[in-house]
């Protein structure tokens, strides 16, 4: 490495720590760092200055409902984690779902084209109200657990989403489809959960893939939709 090259890379250390280098420039700097102890030392000396930048922001109190939504989702996911709840299972189409105790109503839905005939035939779900399914994700399993005015949507066998997409939940009341104001992404094991705050009058719960940040109206076909008993 020439002296000029070294100086150029040293001048880029701050931009690198601030995330301001283009990916190619960052990769080139990292190659230089691997062989330059002087630059590595300076990088580590500078690093705390960037790490502490978030501490400089003016504190804004997060809304209480954020904590409530987070904990609701976390507890729902914990309840559906196999190691956390060794309980009896329902088996649907070769897939198993764990029951959630103390809930007022349970609707199970197999969201697969292959399962459509079963749903229409009225034989699925072991006596529970069963429905649906159209969409481009064969094998997706959806479960809506309603509890009073709210509900929790559990999904399984989801495909990984592109990094610029999220899942968005929707509710249908009469002819009107509204966002449930819930954005989420699948877990690595293909499961996901979402809270539906207001289930009053909801006839159908749907999930679509939307651009990150969500959409005002669905922009893609539902991955799954669940008809609620009326």
């Amino acid at each position, binding site marked *: 490495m020439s002296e000029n090259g070294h100086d150029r890379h040293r001048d880029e250390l*701050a*931009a690198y720590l601030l995330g301001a280098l283009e990916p190619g420039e960052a990769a080139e700097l990292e190659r230089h760092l691997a062989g330059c102890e002087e630059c590595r030392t300076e990088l580590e000396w500078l*690093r705390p200055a960037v790490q502490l930048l978030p501490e400089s922001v003016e504190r804004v109190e997060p*809304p209480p409902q954020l904590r409530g939504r987070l904990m609701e989702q976390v507890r729902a996911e914990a309840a559906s984690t196999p190691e956390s709840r060794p309980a009896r299972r329902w088996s649907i189409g070769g897939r198993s779902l764990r029951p959630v105790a103390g809930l007022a109503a349970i609707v199970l839905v197999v969201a697969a084209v292959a399962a459509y005939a079963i749903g229409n035939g009225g034989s699925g779900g072991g006596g529970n109200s069963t429905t649906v399914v159209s969409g481009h994700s064969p094998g997706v399993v959806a479960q809506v657990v309603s509890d009073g005015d709210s509900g929790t949507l559990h999904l399984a066998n989801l495909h990984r989403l592109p990094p610029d997409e999220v899942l968005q939940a929707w509710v249908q009341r009469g002819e009107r489809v509204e966002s449930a104001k819930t954005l989420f992404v699948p877990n690595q094991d293909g499961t996901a959960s979402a809270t539906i705050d207001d289930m009053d009058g909801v006839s159908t719960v749907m999930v679509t893939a939307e651009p990150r940040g969500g959409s005002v109206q669905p922009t893609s076909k539902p991955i799954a939709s669940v008809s609620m008993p009326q």
Partner: protein
Amino acid sequence: MGTSKAERLADEELMPRIGEKDPNAFEVFYDRHGGVAYSLAYRIVGERGAAEDVTQEAFISIWRSGARYDAARGSVRTWMLGIVRNRAIDFLRSKAGRAPKLDFNDDSILEHRPAAEQTESEALQRETAQEVRGALDELPGEQAKVIQLAYFGGFSHSEIAGMLGVPLGTVKGRMRLGLEKIRGELAEGLT
């Protein structure tokens, strides 16, 4: 594990519990860091609703990937704030129609550094927000501006050079001088 027991644990001890899907450990973790996380998200995206979404997404990511945290590679708080920043910047870039510059590999947020270098860094983490703000306030305006555009705006150095109408080398120089001054202020009494 009950919440009261979790409250007695250090962040680094909470993470394995969160990795085991313990909601009480996660609740304590959120109560400790949710405020600064939301504040950072709001500082970057500038809208309360979007800041909520970003914070929720970041914490759910931590809930789902807590087991991947490696205490040997940095503090939990630094890791968490890096995740929040990545998602907030990605939101900004998506909204502005800019290509995402940051990936979602949260592991990359953890720095690779020798253990001996962590001690000083963790001590510096205890600096108060007021001291950090003071160090930023004392910077010449042009240095503070490039640092804020990069860190809180997610702009690359070439984008900043274009916005300010100054050569790329000038932007790099201001970033370097600014960070050196902040670091110098923070290091007083510690080196």
